[in-house]
């Protein structure tokens, strides 16, 4: 696979505080990546370093094949960091023209990109008159101007209302479907779960995990069960070889598995032993549960 960004042993100190510690990972073409981490885990600092606005302390990173300077590489990247930053006294079109001049791309795509984010009818309004949601959408349009090889989004839905969050998410999904590589930093896990195939998990500047979302923790998932005869169910589960742990909450019994087992086979087994289930759900841990397990464990 073609690497777009490789980070090697990157470290950043702010005085005594180490914001990023010995971080290494690679972003390959065509995948959608999420960077997960609690607030202050070094997500934005890492992105700041590769985007040329924060100076690294040690280590290195390279864009594409490593033969272009960072600022030239950034012309092929689309990025939004935290809040949308534009000139308040210029209109949307004027702001985007300026970005075109910086990136050295043709100005013909401005209307097309404004259409994608649904701002075409407001293109001649001043940026200062935009709502936060519109500002954020303009930022996405600006990041798309050069048809980037990779789109970097840092907390794109921060501070938006539910409608705004939904709009941004739909736009991201559309872009991901077109095969653009995306790197999405967020602490909102359902956001990442919905669009990302790969994740990098950070805590206190240290990498805890990087790889596919579904391989994040070695788990075979769990069953959520209900039966009229709860005690019989529990005693049966305790003696089942595939069940590692049982959790009972009210009338819901959760059985964690230590090997994969088919729900039909499992149901048949219980029925043969005289238990009739009123509720059966087989699930894997959500990203949130996996993430909490991973960050608590370490």
């Amino acid at each position, binding site marked *: 696979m073609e690497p777009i960004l490789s980070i090697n042993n990157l470290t950043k100190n702010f005085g005594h505080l180490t914001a990023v510690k010995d971080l290494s990972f690679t972003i390959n073409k065509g995948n959608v990546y999420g960077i997960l981490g609690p607030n202050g885990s070094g997500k934005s600092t890492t992105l700041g370093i590769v985007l*040329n606005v924060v100076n690294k302390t040690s280590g290195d990173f390279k864009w594409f094949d490593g033969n272009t300077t960072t600022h030239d590489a*950034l012309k092929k990247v689309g990025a939004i*960091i935290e809040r949308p930053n534009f000139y308040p006294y210029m209109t949307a079109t004027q702001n985007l023209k300026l970005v075109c001049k910086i990136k050295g791309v043709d100005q013909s795509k401005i209307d097309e990109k404004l259409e994608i984010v649904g701002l075409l009818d407001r293109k001649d309004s001043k940026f200062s008159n935009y709502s936060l949601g519109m500002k954020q959408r303009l930022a996405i349009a600006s990041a798309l101007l050069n048809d980037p090889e990779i789109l970097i989004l840092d907390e794109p839905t921060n501070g938006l209302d539910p409608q705004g969050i939904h709009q941004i998410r739909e736009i991201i999904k559309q872009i991901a479907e077109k095969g653009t590589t995306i790197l999405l930093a967020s602490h909102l896990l359902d956001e990442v779960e919905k669009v990302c195939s790969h994740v990098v998990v950070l805590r206190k500047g240290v990498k805890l995990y990087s790889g596919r979302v579904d391989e994040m923790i070695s788990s075979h998932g769990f069953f959520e069960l209900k039966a009229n005869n709860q005690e019989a169910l529990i005693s049966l589960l305790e003696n089942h070889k595939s069940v590692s742990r049982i959790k009972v909450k009210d009338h819901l019994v959760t059985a964690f598995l230590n090997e994969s087992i088919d729900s039909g086979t499992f149901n048949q087994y219980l029925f043969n032993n005289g238990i009739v289930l009123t509720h059966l759900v087989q699930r894997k841990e959500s990203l949130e549960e996996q993430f909490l397990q991973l960050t608590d464990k370490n």
Partner: protein
Amino acid sequence: MLRLLHLELQKLLLNRTSKVLIFISFILPFFVILLSSLKINVFGFFTLELGELGIFNFPVIWHLTTFFASQFKFFFAIVVVSMIGNEYSNKTIKQNLIDGLSKKEFILSKFYAIIFFSLASTVLIGLISLCIGLYYSSYNEFNIIIRETSFLLAYLVKLIGFFSLCLFFGMLAKRSAFALAFLFILFILEWLGFGLLTWQFNMDVAESIQNFFPLKSMYKLIDQPFQRIAMTKFPDKGELMYDYAVHWYEIAIVLGWTALFIFLSYRLLKKRDL
């Protein structure tokens, strides 16, 4: 280079405040000089015509107009300082870098804009002086006209130097108001330095050292012309004699400061985490 200049011009000319200040600093002196060259009849009592005083004669006019026009440079200084301050307060400096502008290009685009406006102003002042001069001057020989056009060069260097200083203070303080305060503090510090040197040594030594200070060296490029005009009126008064010419070393000192300020601005931006 044109790309960077275009960038900066778009940023400046779409901003109403900058536009007004640019107008005041470059177009206003142009009009004031033009008006003052006209015959003004004061309520029929007497006619005020500055041209009659001989101040619009070549080559004195070069000295007078450049000195007068350079007093308006403070307005554009506000533009320079706020073009940095705005980039920081809107965080657009961060976005510019993310979009693929290098830190060097960022400083250069500001510097090119400074050169552009200084050059435009110099050409404007040059033209208006030439026109007024041709109209009023008693001497119209080519040799006399081009004599002391070195004041135009001094004017250009003075503007570029001063605005580079503002650029550096803007980068240093990140906020326009603080940067202007720095400018004022530097002014006070230079006079304090001068006072201290006079007290330690003597006036002559202090003055020759003061001529190396950034603000003073820029001021020194075009000395005040009033004494010179007085000199032409009373040629026999020896004590009015002073050295008003533009010297190559005065230009060299200011160019040295300019290079230093631009370099320091770049270093500052390079070292800084945004």
